[in-house]
């Protein structure tokens, strides 16, 4: 075999490449990809609470899902702030009874809450919602009606988010998708599960790509260069997702899949507490129609 020849510069003295201006260590893209990846990881790590011995964890998955859907529907319909506050209070109490605790629930809801708060602020301004002006400056004022409207919107979103978060925290993913599969056509539940399952892997590869770039970068790239890089990574991940989808399909076919998934553990019959839960949540929905 021919002897490998190393280029001379590889062992030579390092060339002077000049100083580099100090910049913030992380860029927008890295932060966002890392944040999204972290959120996905958090979503995947919820089994800890779901396996605790709490009042909601013991419910049959279908009953639990149905009950939460009814509560979310009630929160979407209700026109009373008092009613929404009551539901929010109930969910907060349930977070303690389910041994999740208020803090993990709040941490999960907070980012979306802050976002909702930010986007609903303009509603409080007189330019969007005219009415009795409370405070104002430079021709912009906050109106009482606008403030009430924004507050109500924030309360509604917070209630629905808290409900969805408590459901996610107290339900094992397997149970969630099993329960969902018995309420909607199995194909859709399977597709949703696969999306959730494989998005994580693709996000991880996006995160690795940003780290690989970071490890070879000492200055912030200009916007156009960043855009080009981002587009090329997005295309690569899209290509990987196609290839992975094909491989997963092959792996399923190889183990006998022929278009319809046969699964074990038929639906367990509802117990008394399942009926109680559905009865209670149906009553809440009924109340929301009149309020």
């Amino acid at each position, binding site marked *: *075999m021919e002897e490998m020849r190393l280029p001379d510069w590889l062992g030579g003295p390092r060339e002077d490449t000049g100083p580099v201006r100090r910049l913030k260590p992380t860029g927008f893209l890295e932060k966002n990809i890392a944040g999204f990846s972290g959120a996905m990881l958090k979503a*995947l790590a919820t*089994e800890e609470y779901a396996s605790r011995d709490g009042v909601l964890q013991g419910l049959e998955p279908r009953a639990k899902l149905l009950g939460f859907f009814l509560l979310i529907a009630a929160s979407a319909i209700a026109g009373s702030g008092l009613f929404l506050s009551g539901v929010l209070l109930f969910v907060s109490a349930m977070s303690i009874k389910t041994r999740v605790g208020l803090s993990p629930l709040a941490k999960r809801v907070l980012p979306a809450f802050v976002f909702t708060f930010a986007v609903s602020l303009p509603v409080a301004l007189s330019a969007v919602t005219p009415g009795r002006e409370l405070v104002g400056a430079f021709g912009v004022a906050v109106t009482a009606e606008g403030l009430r409207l924004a507050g109500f919107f924030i309360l509604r979103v917070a209630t629905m988010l808290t409900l969805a978060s408590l459901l996610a925290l107290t339900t*094992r*993913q*397997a149970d969630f*998708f*099993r329960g969902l599969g018995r309420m909607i056509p199995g194909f859709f539940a399977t597709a949703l*599960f*696969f999306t959730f*399952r494989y998005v*994580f*892997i693709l996000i991880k590869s996006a995160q690795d790509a940003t780290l690989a770039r970071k490890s070879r970068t000492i200055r912030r790239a200009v916007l156009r260069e960043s855009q080009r890089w981002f587009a090329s990574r997005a295309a690569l991940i899209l290509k990987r997702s196609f290839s*992975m989808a094909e*491989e*997963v399909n*092959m*792996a*399923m*076919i*190889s*183990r*006998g*899949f*022929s278009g319809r*998934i*046969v*699964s*074990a*553990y038929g639906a367990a019959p509802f117990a008394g507490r399942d009926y109680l839960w559905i009865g209670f949540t149906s009553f809440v929905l009924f109340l929301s129609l009149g309020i």
Partner: protein
Amino acid sequence: MRGAMEDLFIVNALSFSYGGNTALAGVSFSVGAGESIAILGANGSGKSTLLKIMDGLIFPASGSVSFLGERLSEESLQGDFLKRFRERVSFVFPEPDVQLFCPTVLEELLFGPLQLGLEEAAAIKRAEELLEMLGIEALSKRPPYNLSSGEKKKVAIASVLAINPDVLLMDEPTNGLDPRAQVWLFELLGRLKGLKKTIILATHDLSLAEDLSERIIVLDEAHSLVADGPAERILKDKDLLLRANLIHEHAHRHGHVIHRHSHGPYSTHDEHD
């Protein structure tokens, strides 16, 4: 070279390409029941493609693969033959994440048997016994994506063993395994060999091939079959292994003596010139 054993697979003049890129060029061989074969080849030589064709997942551009006398094609892999084929032939993918798509480890093990029509109680019994055999009962309710690489590989193998196939096609089975997990895999495959399972490994790990296979098929970088014979003979053929890029040669000097070594993942023969 084989004794009088039943031919499970007959691969005849098989060619395959991805777009314009050739993956296999005129490959022919047969596989007898109970044989343990390693398909050796450098990266990109066509090993994975060959296994996928043998598992009826993709179909050749020309040539054919027959299983128990019946040609594998999209038309033939239907109804009873499809069921018989999937019950008897299973494929372990190199990347466990591709293979593990169920919400829990237990459901992963139940997937194959249930799709193939096994009763639920029998499938659960199989799955539980496999979990116990592999020492992974504690993982039963865990989602597969949270497992370590070694655990994922164990679950991937268990998920195909649950089908109780006669033929195991394994693509790079030692990929990403630490030494302890590799020893575990060697032991398991040794035990399966003892049960007269047909094991076909695609690998470039020569030590795996030496330990587990009686017969070796070599694909070269031109995607052609260049050798098919007893493992002992093939592994001693240094020129062949060099040509197929499975080992490489390296020379260096110690004083006045030039040492010439062949390097690779396999233990090699040193020579002194």
